[in-house]
């Protein structure tokens, strides 16, 4: 794959090696490099939406923020290949923006490394989400780390065992069951 100057410009300034390091870091629950790279390009991506699509500042901010979350997930799942990261990222952002605006504008027909894969719309039940957020925040630190690691960061049980300092994977598996039970108990208790 071409990792010359042009490619560098298309990849948020990342070389292919750096990209692989970033991806590996994310897979291990380390998102420091991701934040360092992408937050520094945040304003430029927002400006692009504002300039090219006449998006309002706060709409563009929300869209870029949302796109970052999705991009992180795609990177973790290994669904993004090195090549034209910036175009791919902007495609996600523009698609999201246009979908939000229910606009009939056409998405630019550039070529992208992968098929665009956007998640279905979020579950729109703010009250349930708020309850779950509250229930999750009331869990102990270990349960929060475990459930986040397993369901959000997609870490394997072995990595989670190390992360929470458990003695064995078997223990972590049992602990996971207890954490799920506790999360549901608090959630339904808060629901009344």
């Amino acid at each position, binding site marked *: 794959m071409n990792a010359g100057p042009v490619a560098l410009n298309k990849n948020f300034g990342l070389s292919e090696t750096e990209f692989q390091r970033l991806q590996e870091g994310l897979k291990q629950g380390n998102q420091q490099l991701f934040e360092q790279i992408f937050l520094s390009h945040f304003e430029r991506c927002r400006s692009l939406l504002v300039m090219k699509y006449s998006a309002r*500042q706060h709409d563009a901010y929300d869209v870029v923020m949302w796109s970052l979350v999705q991009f992180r997930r795609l990177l973790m799942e290994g669904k993004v290949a090195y090549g034209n990261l910036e175009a791919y990222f902007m495609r996600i952002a523009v698609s999201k923006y246009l979908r939000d605006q229910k606009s009939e504008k056409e998405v630019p027909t550039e070529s992208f490394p992968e098929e665009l894969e956007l998640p279905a719309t979020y579950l729109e039940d703010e009250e349930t989400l708020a309850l779950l957020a509250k229930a999750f925040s009331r869990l102990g630190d270990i349960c929060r780390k475990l459930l986040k690691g397993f*369901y959000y960061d997609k870490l394997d049980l072995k990595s989670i065992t190390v992360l929470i300092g458990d003695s064995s994977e078997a223990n972590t598996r049992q602990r996971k069951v207890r954490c*799920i039970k506790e999360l549901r108990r608090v959630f339904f208790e808060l629901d009344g």
Partner: protein
Amino acid sequence: MKAPLREQLRAQSLPEDELTDTEQQLLRQVLDQDLQAQWAKALAEKGVHRQAPGNLIRRLRPWLAAAAVILLLGFGIWWFMNTSQLDPLQMAALEVEQLSVPGGGFQRGDVQTDPQRSASYTAYENGKFQDALDGITPLLADSAAEASDHILAGLCNLKLPQPDYSTAIRHFLDARNSDSGNYADDLHWYLGLAYTLSGNKANALAELNAVANSPQSRNFRKAAELIKALE
């Protein structure tokens, strides 16, 4: 109408060792929000905010308008209070009204041996200022007239329905001439009020300053306020 997600979850039989797909999606959304909040904070530290400054002002416009109204009201109240407080004539007139008990231990006269003087003081205490003045005036020509008699006459002239400030001032000055010092502070105050009401600002300030510069005077705070109003 579709039941809320939590009701759907409650109705389901949930597996013990796994979150259902819906639960997982909800948890992802919650953690997405956490992550976004964390990044928003990091961005804000770099000076990148969700609202552009212009939008922020637009959003705050109703609050700014409310603040402006409150400020205007506050200024209005302040102006009104200061205007009303800073009218020296009103302040002095109010003080004169409150001079119901002349300071310094008035010579009241003995009912038996000095009935006219006694009656004059009683009339004053009862608010009959013309009677008090009529009763005390003949005594003022007497060489036995006390400083307190001149003060009574002066106060009566201030409190008459048609006050005579210049006559009141003359009586107070006569009182000062015959006073051995007992009424010095009171006389500064009375003269300060009388000069104020007569429009003689320079003399008023001179008398009032004598009171205001004397912290032991019981009227020194009031004198300071009146001076402020006069200035």
